[in-house]
């Protein structure tokens, strides 16, 4: 059974469908990448799955349970899905350590000591143990990204969502993110990643899903999709992207 199954998911804003019947499967331990042009609904898809945005219709089945039902405990669902945002979204008034501790204290009801110990563990895992006392404004983009990932991982989620994880980073830091995601893959962390970054897509996943105008236009292994897909639209899209790298 897949960890996550999305069936005929539709999201319309003011009658305009941003997602128009999306199907997606994500297996335990898998890393899947969602690509597509700007405005094709990639980020909306992630937000619909954890119900930050309410889907208009369709189903999201998470570990066999339909989580689009009205009686779903949405907060419990969100606690099982780690979310790393494009601009990191660290809480600016809290240190790196406290950013990680907040969820543990408020949602896992851990004691101060337990939460600190867990947060320090996650910072070590991200090689950020020397930066726990720093505030977000004192961290580089790559360091913020690591803290954001540590914050998500500390909650022990079933799956980790990345929304454009490299869009705010320079090429060097982007390569660090690739290494980081690959390390998480080796640790058996299930991940779903929305990105424009061909380099990232090629190096973190074998499965790429191409979304266009709210529909899944293609899904396949990265090399086939990124290099020589039969659909001229997809070829043109990646051709332009590759030249732009």
């Amino acid at each position, binding site marked *: 059974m897949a960890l996550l199954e999305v069936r005929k998911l539709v999201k319309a804003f003011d009658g305009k469908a941003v997602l128009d019947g999306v199907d997606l499967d994500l297996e335990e331990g898998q890393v899947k990448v969602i690509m597509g042009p700007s405005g094709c609904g990639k980020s909306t898809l992630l937000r619909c799955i954890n119900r930050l945005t309410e889907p208009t219709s369709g189903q999201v089945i998470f570990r066999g349970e339909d989580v689009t039902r009205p009686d779903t405990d949405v907060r419990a669902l969100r*606690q099982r899905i780690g979310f790393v945002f494009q601009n990191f979204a660290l809480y*600016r*008034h809290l240190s790196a350590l406290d950013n990680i501790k907040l969820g543990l204290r408020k949602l896992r009801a851990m004691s101060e000591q337990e939460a600190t110990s867990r947060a320090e563990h996650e910072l070590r895992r991200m090689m950020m143990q020397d930066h726990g006392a720093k505030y977000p404004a004192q961290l580089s983009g790559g360091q913020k990204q690591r803290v954001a990932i540590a914050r998500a991982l500390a909650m022990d989620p079933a799956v980790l969502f990345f929304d454009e994880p490299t869009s705010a980073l320079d090429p060097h830091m982007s390569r660090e993110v690739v290494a980081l995601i690959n390390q998480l893959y080796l640790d058996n962390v299930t991940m779903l990643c929305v990105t424009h970054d061909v380099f990232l897509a090629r190096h973190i996943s074998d499965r790429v899903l191409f979304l266009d105008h709210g529909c899944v236009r293609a899904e396949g292994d990265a090399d086939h999709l990124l290099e020589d897909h039969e659909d001229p639209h997809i070829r043109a899209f990646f051709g332009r992207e590759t030249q732009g790298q």
Partner: protein
Amino acid sequence: MNFWQILAQLATGAGYTILVTVACIATGLVTGLLVALLTRLRLRALDRLLATYTYVFRGVPVLVLLFLVYFGLPGLGLNVPPLVAMMLSLGLIAGAYLAEVFRGAFASVDPDEIMAAEAMGMSRRQILLAIELPQMLRFAVPGMLNEFTTVLKYSPFAYTVGLPEIMKQAMALAATTLRGLEIYLAIGVLYFGIYKLMLFLVRAIERRYAVPGFIRL
């Protein structure tokens, strides 16, 4: 009686001025915070009531409201002590202004941070108290300081309801000595001293809770 002696005599009323100012600021802070928090929670049932409070209390002059409370309410059988009358007039008016200061400061909290907390599974109340409130209070310091200063400057109205604060003492002294220039100059010096003390305290609190690089986006 020289200027310094006048200053020393008037300073005995400074305690009352500080008491009135602190009591009215405390009333304003509690009311303003409560109104801003409830407004932020967007409770439909209370929205109209909260908006009416800030609208009405920002539009009524302090002295009119003070007289209404102190001289008007006894007509309904409610005798209000002078300090409480100040709190219910100047304090509640300050609360209405502070509620607006807080509303503006809340609007400066980064929506992405709120979304990150929602994505983590935190409740609306947890997000409000753990993320929005601590950030909002830091953003609101300049606006709060302005309002605190306004409260201090309106505190002389307390003499109209019989509180022996600086102004009351000054008027009594001026009536007996006829040395208005020195007396009112001394009052100005005392108010400025209290203002500087308040500024020092607020800045100390601001420094204590300062976060590196934390600025309004």
